[in-house]
C-alpha cells in the first residue's frame, strides 16, 4: 500500500509540476500576443486618450514577472481576477461556462462510454464475424468525419428535415434538467459519434490483445464459456488501456469541443476562450487555459491512478 501511495504521490507531484510549467507557458504566450490589449478591447472606437486611460486602469505598466507571480498567487487562492472587458468575476464567468461544458461532456460520456464498451466487448466476443466487420467499418468511418460534417448532417436530418431536436442548444441556468438534456442531445450525439469509435476500437483491441495470452488459453481449456472468458478473464486485465482511452476521450469532450459549441451555439468554455483570445481579455484566457490544462492533467492523473489501482500486482504487493 505504501508503494501505491508513493506512486500516487509521485503522479500528483508531476501533475502539479506540469501545471506550473503550463501556467508559465500560458502567461508568457499571452504576453507575446501582438497588438495592444487596451486597443483590442476598446476596439476601433478607441482613441489614443481612451487607450492610455484604460492602460492605467489595468495596471499594464507593472513589469510582467511581477504580474505573473501575483497572478499565480491569486490563482492558487482561487481568485482568478476580473475580466478586463466587462469587470466580471472570472470565477463566476468561467464557473457558469465550465458547468455547461461539463454538462455536455457528461451527457455525451453517459451515452458514448457504455455504448463504446458494450460495442467493444461484443466485437471482441464475436471477432471476425459479420457484426465485428460491420461495426469496424462504421466506427472507422465515423472517426474519419470532420465534426462539423457530423454536426451538420445531424442538424440536416434531425432538426431541419425531421424537426425532432432543436438545431441550437440554447440552454441557461433556468432551463429545467430534462429540458436541458433534450436540448443538448444533438451536440451530445455529434460528440458521441466522434468519440465512440476510438473507445470501442481500443476496448476491442485491448481485449483481443489479451486473447493470445496463456491465461486466456487456460480459461478456454477450463471449458469456460466465451462470454465468461471475455468478461471475467480478459476485461479485468484490459482495464488499464481501456481506462486510458476513456479518459483521453473524456478530456477531449471537455477541452476539444469548440467546433461543436460553435455549430450548436452552446455556451461552453471553449467559446468563451476563443472569444476572449480575440478580445485580448487576458485574465479570462489565462484562467480558461489553466482550467483546460488542469482538467487534462487531472484526468490523466485519474487514469494513471486508476491504472495503478486496477493492477493487482501493485494493489496486492508480495
Amino acid at each position, binding site marked *: 500500500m505504501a508503494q501505491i501511495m508513493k506512486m500516487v504521490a509521485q503522479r500528483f507531484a508531476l501533475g502539479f509540476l506540469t501545471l506550473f510549467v503550463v501556467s508559465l507557458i500560458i502567461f508568457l504566450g499571452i504576453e507575446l500576443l501582438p497588438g495592444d490589449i487596451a486597443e483590442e478591447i476598446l*476596439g476601433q*472606437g478607441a*482613441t489614443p486618450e*481612451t487607450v492610455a*486611460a484604460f492602460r492605467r486602469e489595468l495596471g499594464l505598466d507593472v513589469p510582467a514577472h511581477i504580474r505573473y507571480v501575483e497572478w499565480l498567487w491569486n490563482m492558487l487562492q482561487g481568485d482568478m481576477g476580473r475580466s478586463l472587458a466587462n469587470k466580471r468575476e472570472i470565477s463566476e464567468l468561467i464557473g457558469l461556462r465550465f458547468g455547461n461544458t461539463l454538462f455536455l461532456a457528461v451527457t455525451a460520456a453517459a451515452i458514448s462510454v457504455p455504448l463504446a464498451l458494450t460495442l467493444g466487448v461484443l466485437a471482441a466476443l464475436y471477432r471476425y464475424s459479420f457484426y465485428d466487420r460491420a461495426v469496424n467499418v462504421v466506427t472507422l468511418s465515423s472517426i474519419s468525419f470532420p465534426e462539423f460534417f457530423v454536426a451538420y448532417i445531424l442538424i440536416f436530418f434531425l432538426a431541419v428535415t425531421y424537426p425532432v431536436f*432543436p438545431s*441550437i442548444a440554447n440552454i441557461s441556468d*433556468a432551463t429545467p434538467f430534462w429540458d436541458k438534456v433534450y436540448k443538448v442531445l444533438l451536440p451530445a450525439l455529434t460528440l458521441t459519434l466522434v468519440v465512440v469509435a476510438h473507445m470501442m476500437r481500443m476496448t476491442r483491441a485491448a481485449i483481443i490483445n489479451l486473447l493470445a495470452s496463456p491465461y486466456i488459453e487456460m480459461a478456454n481449456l477450463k471449458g469456460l464459456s466465451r462470454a465468461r472468458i471475455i468478461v471475467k478473464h480478459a476485461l479485468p486485465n484490459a482495464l488499464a488501456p481501456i481506462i486510458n482511452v476513456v479518459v483521453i476521450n473524456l478530456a477531449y469532450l471537455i477541452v476539444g469541443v469548440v467546433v461543436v459549441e460553435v*455549430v450548436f451555439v452552446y455556451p461552453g468554455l471553449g467559446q468563451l476562450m476563443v*472569444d476572449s483570445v480575440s478580445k485580448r481579455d487576458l485574465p479570462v484566457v489565462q484562467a480558461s487555459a489553466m482550467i483546460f490544462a488542469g482538467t487534462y492533467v487531472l484526468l490523466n492523473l485519474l487514469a494513471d491512478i486508476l491504472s495503478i489501482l486496477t493492477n493487482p500486482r501493485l494493489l496486492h504487493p508480495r
Partner: protein
Amino acid sequence: MTSNKKLTAPLSGDVSRRGFLGGTAALGITAASTSALMGRKAYAAKKGGHLRAGIGHGSTTDSLDPATWENGFSLSMDYTLFNHLGEVDHTGGVKPELAESWEASPDAKTWSFKLRKGVEFHNGKSLEAEDVIASIQYHMGEDTKSPAKSLLKQVTSIKADGKHEVVIELESGNADFPYVISDYHIAIKPSKDGKIDPTEGIGTGGYVLENYEPGVRFMANKNKNYFKSDRGHFDQVEMITIIDLAARQNALTTGEIDMMDRADLKTVHLLKRKPGINVMETVGYKHYTFPMRTDTAPFDNNELRLALKYALDRDELVKKILRGHGVVGNDHPISPTNQYHADGLAQRSYDPDKAKFHFKKAGMDGTVIQLSAADAAFPGAVDAAVLYKEHAAKAGINIEVVREPNDGYWSNVWMKKGWGACYWGGRPTEDWMFTTAYAAGADWNDTFWKHDRFNELLLAARAELDSDKRRTMYYEMQEIVSNEGGVVVPMFANYVFAASDKILPSEQMAGNWELDGAKFAERWSFA
C-alpha cells in the same frame, strides 16, 4: 470569428425630411399588407408574447457598461433597456425621446433640453436633470474609456436649469448636436451622488433586465410603467448570441428563434422562398472602404489615387460581395440616405483606360502595389481585394493582395499599412462623418489626409443653420473627397435581416442601424 467585425463606434440618428428614401425597404412584407397598413393609425400590434431574437454579435467580453458598447448586441440591448435624449425615427430624423423638446441659440453654441416629466426608472426613481447630467458626464473627462469621449469634447459645460431642463454649452456651433447627444452610448441611467453606476442595467426603457449572460443571452421583461404607451409590446424579450451564420439561419427556419440579424447574402434568395419567413432590407450609412495613407509614398501622389479609383469595377463588387444588397459608392463617405448627399456628382465608374492614363502620369509603371485585407475589415474583404486585383490587372496595374490575420487587424494594419480594407458604420450627419475621419488631424483620419479648403468648409458648415447654404458646402466637400481624397469607397451595404411571419415589424423601419434602428424590441410585436 468573422463576427468580430467591428461597428464603428459613435453614431446616432438619421436625417429628417428624407423619409422617402432613407426609410424602409421591407422586402419581405408583401406589397398588399404594407399598403393596407399604410396611413392607418392603429397598426395592429398585438400585446404580449415571448420574443426570441438571434443576434450575430455579442461576445463574452461585453458588459452593461455603456462605455464598452461596440457591437450589434449591445446596441439592441441598449435600446431595449434604456432611452436617450433623442431618438432617430424611420425618416432618419432625430426627435425628442427623454427630452420633450430642445432649442439652440442662433450660433448653435448653446443647447437647452427640456426633459419629459413623469418618467420613472425601473427602480422607481423619477427622471431628473441630474440623471441626464451624470449619464453624459460619465463619457467625459480624463479617465473615461468611452468611445463617446471624443464626441463630447466639444461640450464646455452642462448645467441643470431646474429639475427638468439641461443646458449644454459647446466650444463652437454645431447644428447637428441633437444627433450627437442621442448617440447610443449616452444612455440615460439613474444617478446617485452625481454619478451613475455603469454596470447596472437600470434604465427607463420598455423592458426591465431579467438576466444577462454576455456572449450568450439577454432576457428582459415588459416595463409596465413605460412612458411610451404605444411601444414595447412583448411580455418578454430574449436575445441570443448566435455568431455562426448557418446556426442562426437554421434556428430561424426551425423556429428556435423568431427573428435574426445579418442574413446570409449568399442564400438570401433561398431564405425568401421559405414559407413563414420574411426577409427585410434597409439602406443605411454602412460603407466599405480602401483607405490609402496620403502622407506616405506612393499614395501621396493623387494621380496614383485616381488611377486606383478608376481601376475598380464597383458594380461587380456590389454584385459579388454584397450580392446586390447595396449601392455603389462614389469615393466619399456620404450615403444616399444622408440629407446632403451630392446627387449631382458624377458616378465614378470602371475605366481601365483612364486608370492606365493616371497610373502612367503618376510614373508608377510596373510598380507592384500592395493591398492589405482581412475579413475582419468587412465580410468578403479578401474576396473584394482579389476582385480588385483582377480588375486592376486589366489596366496594367499590378496589385498584390496581402492577406492579414483577422486578429489584431485594427491595431496592426488599419492606419498602419499603406493601403488596406476598412469598414465604416457611417454617420447620420455629414459633419459627424467628415469630422471623424476626414478632418485634418482627426484621430481616425485613416487616410492622413489634409486639405485646406475642405477643412475650412467643414467648420463653416457645422455652425451654419441655413439648410441650403449647408447643402452647397457639403456638396463641394464630397466632390473634393471624391477627386482628391485618399479613399476608395466602392459601395454602401444594406442591412439584410429576417423574421418569422409571426412577427409584425414596424410599418416603416429606421435605417440608421440594423433591425429597425436596433429598436425592434420596442417597435415590433407579434402579428
